[in-house]
């Protein structure tokens, strides 16, 4: 790359610029919005501490009935859908915007499905593409035992999420359909092997997508409880499920830290601030190949800093409060922040690249079909330079970040323990305020690449 950089500076030819559209957001008084959001988070914590009056966060039964959902149907459908998508990944177009695998994975599985799961609870679980083949293989092999993988806790999923994040944020070509298909197939086979050896229940602690969806689905205001052939549909404020969760294990905490740190760096790595730091010109970004090393370090640093900041906040709070603030329960608050970040970061991708996905689902072979009954339409990004629309987009991101942090503050107050000194809430509240500012700054600052 250095040779190339030298060649570029020695050549009189100029790069064509104007890659990045002018940003409407940069002309808004976002500093005021960020200040207001930070104050709102701080005041919420203050009022919560002083009045000790917090929303009850209870679940209410909406409907109860027999559990008629034939689960194996969903699991089999998930497995078949994945197989078909992989085949398309290998055999279909090399152009990622015209390949159903790339589109469905990056805008569907990674964006739309998590968004839906934040509203309706874990929607990955009913279609988990491993369960059906694992169960079938274990029956065929007559193997009912385990090999002790469960003793590793959630660490395998931590490794999975870390690797996936690197692939998404840093690697050269995460959108390349064949590359993505190859990686998915390899990962699927490894997990299949391990789950056959250990049992399908292990997926819930060893497979990162299964863990991710289970956690992120906990902030949903609607969820299902299945027991003994009965299913209960529940409704309650976001967080109502979280306060009833068991304290997190160390590996589960690590999973949340890696998830949150990755989302933070995903946003940060695109900012002019980061580009300036690593000596990249954002108006003439060299491309991913030039920044793999430094962005790998950045991602590692982001995980480290996220973990250190939360650990320091908890330790300080505990010291000042005279107890409480056990990591296991309080770390659950950061689930809300991870969910809010996910929405804020990927919302624009959903409404831009999501159009290609809709098109590809409507006409998967690009031959004029209309499987979804949609009329012909052009892919359109005109709204990206429409001030009114972009302010609405920013409002969605703002609401996601602010809402997530308000929920996180309330959860922290609820989970920190009883009978603590009020001062103890100061460090964790400060951390939440900083996270609010950081999250909104990421959405407001100049970004490239």
């Amino acid at each position, binding site marked *: 790359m250095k040779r190339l950089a030298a060649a570029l500076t020695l050549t009189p030819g100029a790069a064509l610029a104007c890659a990045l559209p002018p940003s409407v957001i940069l002309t808004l008084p976002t500093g005021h919005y960020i200040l207001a959001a930070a104050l709102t988070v701080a005041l919420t914590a203050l009022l919560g501490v002083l009045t000790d009056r917090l929303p009850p966060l209870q679940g209410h039964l909406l409907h109860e009935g027999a559990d008629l959902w034939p689960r194996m149907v969903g699991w089999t459908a998930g497995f078949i859908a994945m197989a078909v998508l992989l085949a398309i990944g290998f055999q*279909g177009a*090399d152009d990622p915007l015209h390949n159903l695998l790339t589109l469905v994975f990056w805008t569907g599985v990674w964006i739309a499905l998590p968004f839906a799961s934040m509203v309706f609870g874990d929607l990955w679980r009913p279609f988990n593409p491993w369960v059906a083949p694992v169960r079938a293989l274990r029956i065929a092999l007559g193997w009912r035992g385990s090999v002790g993988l469960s003793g590793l806790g959630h660490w395998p999923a931590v490794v999975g999420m870390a690797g996936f994040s690197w692939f998404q944020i840093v690697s050269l070509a995460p959108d390349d359909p064949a590359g993505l298909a190859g990686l998915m197939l390899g990962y699927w086979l490894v997990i299949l092997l391990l789950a056959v050896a250990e049992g399908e229940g292990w997926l819930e602690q060893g497979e990162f997508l299964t863990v991710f969806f289970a956690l992120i689905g906990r902030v949903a205001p609607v969820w299902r409880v299945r027991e003994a052939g009965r299913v209960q549909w529940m409704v309650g404020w976001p967080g109502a499920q979280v306060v009833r969760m068991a304290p997190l294990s160390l590996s589960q905490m690590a999973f949340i830290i890696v998830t949150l740190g990755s989302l933070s760096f995903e946003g940060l790595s695109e900012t002019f601030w980061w580009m300036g730091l690593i000596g990249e010109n954002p108006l003439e970004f060299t491309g991913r190949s030039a920044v793999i090393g430094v962005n790998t370090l950045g991602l590692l640093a982001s995980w480290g800093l996220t973990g250190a900041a939360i650990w320091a906040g908890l330790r300080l709070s505990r010291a000042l409060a005279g107890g409480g603030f056990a990591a296991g329960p309080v770390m659950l608050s950061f689930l809300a922040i991870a969910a809010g970040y996910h929405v804020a970061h990927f919302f624009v991708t959903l409404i831009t690249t999501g159009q290609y996905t809709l098109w590809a689902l409507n006409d998967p072979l690009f031959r*004029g079909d209309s499987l979804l009954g949609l009329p012909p339409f052009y892919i359109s990004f005109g709204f990206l330079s429409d001030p009114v629309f972009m302010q609405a987009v920013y409002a969605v991101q703002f609401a996601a970040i602010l809402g997530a942090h308000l929920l996180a503050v309330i959860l922290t107050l609820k989970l920190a323990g009883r009978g603590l000194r009020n001062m103890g809430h100061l460090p964790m509240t400060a951390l939440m305020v900083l996270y609010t500012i950081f999250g909104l700054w990421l959405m407001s600052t100049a970004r490239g690449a």
Partner: protein
Amino acid sequence: MKTTLTGIAPSRRAVLTGMGAGLIAGSAGLVRPVWAQAAPLKLGFQLHATGIGASYGRWYQRTADAALKKINEAGGIGGRPVEIVYEDDGTDPARGAEVVDKLNSQHGCDLIFGTLFSHVVMGSAPRAGELKVPYLVCSEGYHVASGALNRWTLQPGITDVRSQISSMAPWVAGNLGKKVTMFFPDYAFGYDHRDFFTKAIEAQGGQVVAQIAIPPTETSYTRYFAQIPAETEVLYHVMVGPGVLTFVKELGEFYGSGAKPQLFGFIDSLEAVDTATPGLEFLEGSHFWEAHPRVKPADAGAAEGDYRAAVGVDDNGASVADAKDVATYSHMFSAWETLHFIKQTVEASGYAGVADRQKLVEAMEAVTDLPYGIERPQGAKVFNGKTHQAFGSQNISKVEGGKLVKVHTTTIDEGKYDDGVDYTTMSF
């Protein structure tokens, strides 16, 4: 293994064969010309589908698809159907070189075209030279004509930036003023404007009174405006990126409603952006360079309407489906014109397969006049076989009522300069 035509999902290139899917989702053509049993001509397209160039890539693909559809419906090239194989380069030079390899070796493309970003061209052209595959770029960089590349790399579909910039000077000096202050981003793109325009305006008896370079990561500009000399008659600006709206807004606040110099800019700043966008009011009455005027000029040639209809762009330069979705209109014609240049030279050379690649490049080098017509909706061009570079006329438009109204067209000669290289003397 990949992109076989009989896979579970036919590849896009297979679908494009003979019907040109266009970018209308769900409308891909039902017209299927009946081909003779000729094997298709396979053209590789190095596409910025992702990365920093993606906003351009979307329109380049739409334009190339439209040209492909037109050519196939009219009988293909040399009686053969044509396929375009799109490969995403991530707007990354390292991937660009890989894509050249892949299009050549894996897909067996006859040639490669469509590359826009100069750093991707610089990263890919050497590989194209090694593989001896014709590589036709659409980047408007001066790198081709400067002699930095090789015998296999040509730029037949768009005038280079040196010519574009130089040809502006006579009109600017004659109509706006001779004392110019330049605002440009502090890197190669800006330096081209600084160097070529400064020289060209001096040749017109004018003078650049200040050159103000703005760091690429800057997002606030007011403090730089204090450096504008009072004697300035023309403010030449080529700011690009997310900060452009802020730049215009702060410039407006700086001058208020008082006296201000004439503004002259390059449409690169606002390519794909509606000039009527709130916040850009200060640009009213100012002038812009455009290669291809986005608002259909009153005196537009006969081909203009047909080209717009084929690409799905209305008379304001926006998508027919969304008036806010403004095209990268000033640049994307190069994908269309390059494809037609390929058609012309493949047919003239009697190209039959990869063994004829050298013959094809020689036929390209022999081209001189490229007359106006549906093949070249931007305008007639002259091709210089020695420098591998096309030269065309440029346009100047004025913002009137938030719209870009063409007020002047340069001659091709105004953009000419002495040859910097003779590629025809180099070995293949």
